[in-house]
């Protein structure tokens, strides 16, 4: 307790300096963490895209009239339109199945979650890393109306593998109807899954993935019927999808099929997406990293300066403590504690933020969209802390130990 009081006394010599430094250090570290997490996410999605897709992959976007879709009396008009085109595509020798993304909104534990429905081919194409369980456990058939699913996000942290949970599906109005789900796997951070919600003139890999706080189901008629029975409009199909061309098909067959795809969709090839994604990664690194680095440099220098300032302001008191019987070791510990406190507050706040971000995001309290916070982010923060605070403490101690307490006392007297 006495040591804590002495550390507080150490910092109280210049309260405003300590407050400004702690505030700016915390803020700059936060800016740096968010920026790095955002750039890492773009790099991560680019790597996932390249790892799991072959060069004969195409990202296709269906152009539709939103008014026509709204007016349609069909449950899922986009899916119907895609299925119709896919049936025609099946006539081409180079045809390969369309990997579509369907989703619906559900409620789990009082919080809204998103649920993805993937074909088996989609799961095989993107076997994203799981922290627990396995994709093989994901079954098409339900077991006595208990469906299997892989969970994603912090919402399901407390749920054990193999547990059965209930998720509510909107049954028109506010009433919810439960479906039973057995958790057979948990997606590893950054909880990013194929989410083909974006199309446009330029498509990059980060547009093709999105953070998911919810569940991933395998597509089955039983599941679709079960959900549709609750609400006809619960399931939404994205108008965008991934497809490939059969590598064994002749060049002419491939060309014909590509022409067919282009006549029906806005088509982006693997090479185009990879090129634009690489450009985006380079651009993001170039445009977003330097400013936090400059700010970090400034606060690091400020921390270094403040450590020397605080030591100089307290050195006389410690000379007196020494003469009253306080050991030099203890004085050094108090000085180190004071300097460490200046950086540690910001560091701890940032580490807590990074650690709990997924929980905050899952509960809808804070959503920064596409960011990658994981143990590496905590490691980065720790490393920055170690370098800046470590150097400041070392410099503070060098200044503190330069003269003996007697010399200091004589000088100030």
């Amino acid at each position, binding site marked *: 307790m006495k040591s804590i009081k002495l550390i507080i006394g150490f910092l109280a010599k210049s309260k405003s300096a300590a407050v400004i430094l702690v505030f700016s250090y915390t803020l700059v570290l936060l800016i740096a963490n968010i920026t790095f997490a955002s750039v890492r996410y773009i790099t991560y999605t680019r790597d996932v895209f390249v790892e799991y897709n072959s060069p004969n992959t195409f990202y296709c976007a269906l152009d539709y009239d939103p*008014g026509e879709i709204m007016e349609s009396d069909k449950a899922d008009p986009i899916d119907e339109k895609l299925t119709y085109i896919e049936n025609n595509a099946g006539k081409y020798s180079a045809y390969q199945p369309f990997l579509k993304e369907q989703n619906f909104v559900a409620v789990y534990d009082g919080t809204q979650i998103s649920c993805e429905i993937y074909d088996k081919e989609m799961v095989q194409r993107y076997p994203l890393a799981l922290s627990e369980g396995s994709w093989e456990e994901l079954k098409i058939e339900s077991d006595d109306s208990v469906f299997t699913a892989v969970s994603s996000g912090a919402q399901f942290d407390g749920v054990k593998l193999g547990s059965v949970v209930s998720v509510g599906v909107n049954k028109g109005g506010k009433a919810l109807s439960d479906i039973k789900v057995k958790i057979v796997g948990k997606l590893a951070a950054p909880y990013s899954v194929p989410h083909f919600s974006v199309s446009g003139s330029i498509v990059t890999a980060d547009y093709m993935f999105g953070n998911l706080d919810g569940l991933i189901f395998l597509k089955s008629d039983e599941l679709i019927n079960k959900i549709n029975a609750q609400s006809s409009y619960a399931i939404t199909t994205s108008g965008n999808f991934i497809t490939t061309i059969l590598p064994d098909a002749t060049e002419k067959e491939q060309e014909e099929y590509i022409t067919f795809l282009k*006549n029906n969709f806005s088509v982006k090839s693997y090479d185009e997406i990879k090129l634009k994604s690489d450009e985006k990664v380079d651009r993001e690194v170039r445009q977003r990293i330097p*400013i936090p680095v*400059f700010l970090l*440099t400034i606060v690091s220098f400020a921390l270094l*300066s*403040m450590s020397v300032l605080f030591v100089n302001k307290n050195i006389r008191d410690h000379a007196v403590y020494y003469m009253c019987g306080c050991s030099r070791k203890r004085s050094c510990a108090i000085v180190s504690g004071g300097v460490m406190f200046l950086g540690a507050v910001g560091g701890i706040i940032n580490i807590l933020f990074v650690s709990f971000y997924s929980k905050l995001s899952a509960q809808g309290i804070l959503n920064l969209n596409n960011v990658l916070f994981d143990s590496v982010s905590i490691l980065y923060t720790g490393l920055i802390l170690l370098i800046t605070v470590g150097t400041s403490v070392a410099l503070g101690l060098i200044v503190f130990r330069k003269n003996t307490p007697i010399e200091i006392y004589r000088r100030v007297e």
Partner: protein
Amino acid sequence: MKLLKLIFSRIYYNFYSNKLVFVLFALGCFVCAVSFTYLYGNTMPSKIMPAKDSNINYFSFNFNNGESLSELISKDVFTSELVNDVRFYHNLTDAELPPELNNEAAPSFKLGTGMFSKDHMFQEMGRVEFTEEENNNAENVIILPQDYNMLTKQVGESINVCGQTFKIIGFHSGWNQMLIPQNTMLKINSAINSVELYTNKGLSRAKSEDFISEFKSDFFDATVSSSPIEMYDAADSQNPQIMFLLSVVYMISVASFMFLMKYMMDKSRRENIIYSIVGAKKKKVILILLAESSVVITVFSIFAVLVHFLFYDSFFSHINTESGITYNINDYLLITVFMIVLSLLTSIPFVVSYMKNSLVENKIKYSE
């Protein structure tokens, strides 16, 4: 002269008696100044704008009296190496519009032709380029904009424009341009009402003005509807807000290091008390203190700007957020003046708080 001598002797004393603190203060000022110089070039819209080619390479002109396409394409301004995408447009009248668009609150559709670069033409469906054969034979093929009005049409179907039937070969991502091959446009012989062109690289304000002058010398009745000059004007209008934000960031950064300066002031308290005892007014002492910190800050700000200037090509240009950002002498002067003024403003509260005590209080504080 006496004041200058006094200031320099005080700076020397501060350096001599608090070497580490002085060095840290100087380093702090230097780091803040380098960062401010970097941020100035990388956040001010007027500095970033010329580095972004895609924002400053587009021109659009209207012809008050319709021009003939055959005459237009022979003009040097369109065949210059500087131009890599040019589109000639005929504004469609109600009678020329496809019947499907009648009674629609349609935007002003245009029938266009020209030399389309892939950088500015995005496929939505089908093809977005014409084959050589289609152009040579002046075939009636058309690329439609991906507008909601066109959604009822599919690739391969026909559409009637200007009384002619065209086969739809694709949709592009634009919103009101229907595109046909150049020879087809010549065959139709519709008057050209406007032209849009992209240069192969961004143009400076001066070069944009030159280009417009050159264009207008060929076409007296042409009016500019869009050009990079508008982008430059828009960027210039945003500069004050960004400069204000930068100034706030700089002042907060410098404030962290001003505590070191205040510490040095505290150390020279005895000297300041003597000034007051021998008759120096409070204002005069404040002036000395402010001048002292200003000189140190000015020296290190100028040093930082010099370092930025000298190592710009070898280092700083490589870490810029956009390649092509340039600093001229006026920028460096502006940055230096701003940094000195802002540092001075930041140091005022520190000096004033130091001098808020009376002479007797200062004397007691010194004796403690």
